[in-house]
């Protein structure tokens, strides 16, 4: 009996030593303990699936959903091809942290099809997605000439993942 208790004490001390040693301690507090606190919060007040997605995916998801809303409100066909401004343009010209996700992610989040300025098939783009001060506008691309001017204007910026 005594030995079992002694071994139990050894187990507890070993666990404490391992979890308090060096980087283990930082990791344990930053990850499992923080996750536990999140669990306590989340299990007490269940958020909706959409809220969980918004919280988890952050700004890129919010922009994608705003684009989706704009498409629905503007009665734009769901199979429209949306041309994104390059992320390099947001970073280098507008000096914002805005980062549009790649077209595959836009499709996963919203079911809408997007294109980069250097994507194959960019000539078929129907709308240009402009984001300024958090507001999304969809500008129709009505002619090849207009599309060429848009592409030329963004040519020096890279789309960047």
């Amino acid at each position: 009996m005594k030995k079992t208790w002694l071994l139990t004490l050894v187990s507890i001390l070993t666990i404490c030593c391992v979890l308090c040693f060096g980087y283990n301690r930082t990791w344990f507090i930053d990850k499992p303990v923080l996750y536990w606190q999140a669990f306590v919060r989340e299990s007490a007040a269940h958020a909706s699936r959409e809220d969980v997605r918004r919280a988890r995916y952050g700004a890129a998801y919010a922009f994608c959903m705003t684009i989706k809303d704009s498409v629905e409100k503007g009665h734009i066909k769901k199979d429209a091809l949306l041309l994104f401004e390059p992320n390099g343009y947001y970073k280098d010209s507008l000096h914002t942290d805005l980062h549009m996700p790649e077209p595959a992610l836009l499709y996963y989040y919203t079911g809408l099809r997007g294109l980069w300025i250097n994507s194959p098939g960019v000539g078929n783009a129907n709308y240009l997605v402009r984001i300024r001060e958090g507001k999304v506008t969809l500008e129709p691309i009505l002619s090849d000439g207009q599309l060429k001017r848009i592409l030329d204007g963004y040519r020096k910026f890279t789309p960047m993942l």
Partner: protein
Amino acid sequence: MGIVLLTCCHFFSGYGLLKLFRLQYKLLVMVPLAMLAGVAIASLMPFILQLVYCPLYPGTVFGALTMACILLNINNFRALRASPWRWKRLLRGIRIRLYEIPYILILAFLVWVSVWRCYYLPPTSRDALSGPEAIAEYAVREHTMINSFFTTELSTTNNQFKSPFLISLQVIYKMAGYPFGQVWLSIIFVSFTLLLYQWLKTAVHPVLGGLLLLLLTITPEMYAYTLMVLYDYSNTVYLFLGLYMLIGYFDNKRSALFWSATFFMGIATYIRSETLVLLVLFMPALWIMRRREGTSFLGLMWWTVLFLLPSVLCYYVTVQLYNNHYLPVHYDVSAQVNQRLMELGPLFRRYKDIITELVVSAFGVRLWGYLMFVFAGLLLAELVVMRRLTRAGRNWLYAIVVVFGGLGLLGHLLPLFSLTDSTKRGLMKVAPMMVFYMCNNQLIVRLSHWIRRWEEASADDVAR
């Protein structure tokens, strides 16, 4: 309810398969091993349906799972009717001692947190969202894995060509009512943790076994992938199971272990096709073992074919057949191969980078905690003090060397196999191998014997 039925389905199909291999373990090993085999079988079902162009409806998917479960258990039904009380035998020998409880509690805490995040939060890794997760989401809506996702702009990603393992399991769990899927990853994590604990407890004293398992579980990189759906954790688990069985086969020559090793390694290749390269590097160990048994040269070729067949089949079906003949867009793997293979400078630089950047660095500690340092320390101590390694220790060390060597080689073969992504995640495979080397380290084994002898000198209080 869905999870209960799926869990039962995984367990019984896995159990049926293990019984076909004639594997028999005690209950606490059999249950997690059967669960892991069952999840592997489930991951094949939607993919097989897709290969025969059967639409993916809940009826067809769950029908296929049920059918697989029944077919794999036909012999067991017969045996159960002949001897209905054989299940009782499995229940014998479950024993938890008081000093195991602290380890069980801390592991349960880590497991619970991971399970909750898998259940509650959506998948987040870019590699999943821009490929398998999106394909699975649209497969549920459009009833096929070859769906409208492939009509969108995919020039920035190659994740759509990755294994159907993840897509299949996501499809099953989304259809079962889990909108984010992922719960299968928790089943793999829980089963693997339970299984390792049982195997470690068999090898060394539970206090040491619990400590080794804790060291493995708190490996930051590994833990992160228990709650973030991707391929590498599952690949690590199934490759480890295959190796455990293979090393068991080296020890006692039971063909059941060989067949189960080929199955689990086949699944590991199905999950990540480049695993095949590692398996080829494991061949010399099998050849040496067979040569010691007096197998002829022709016999060695035969054993090679048997060993690699499931893996080559998985590789061919997922990479060559499915990617090139089913998907509407194609991926030329050969175009990704390094054209300057004979220049060995980059290869050695890659090995150096693996060691200096991913292991012996502050970044390495953030990835692996202190596991690799403990491993290196114990290896050095064993070499200095004992001056030789045990047979099992040598086998695990060989496996570790193969993975290190193989990852460097893969980085040299495929420049896309980057150091800080693919190689870093691939390195996860050595973590459980290191733990199993440690539990076969003679110093640890001696310490274990010493604790057992000291404990058994009088103590007999056992919490059942």
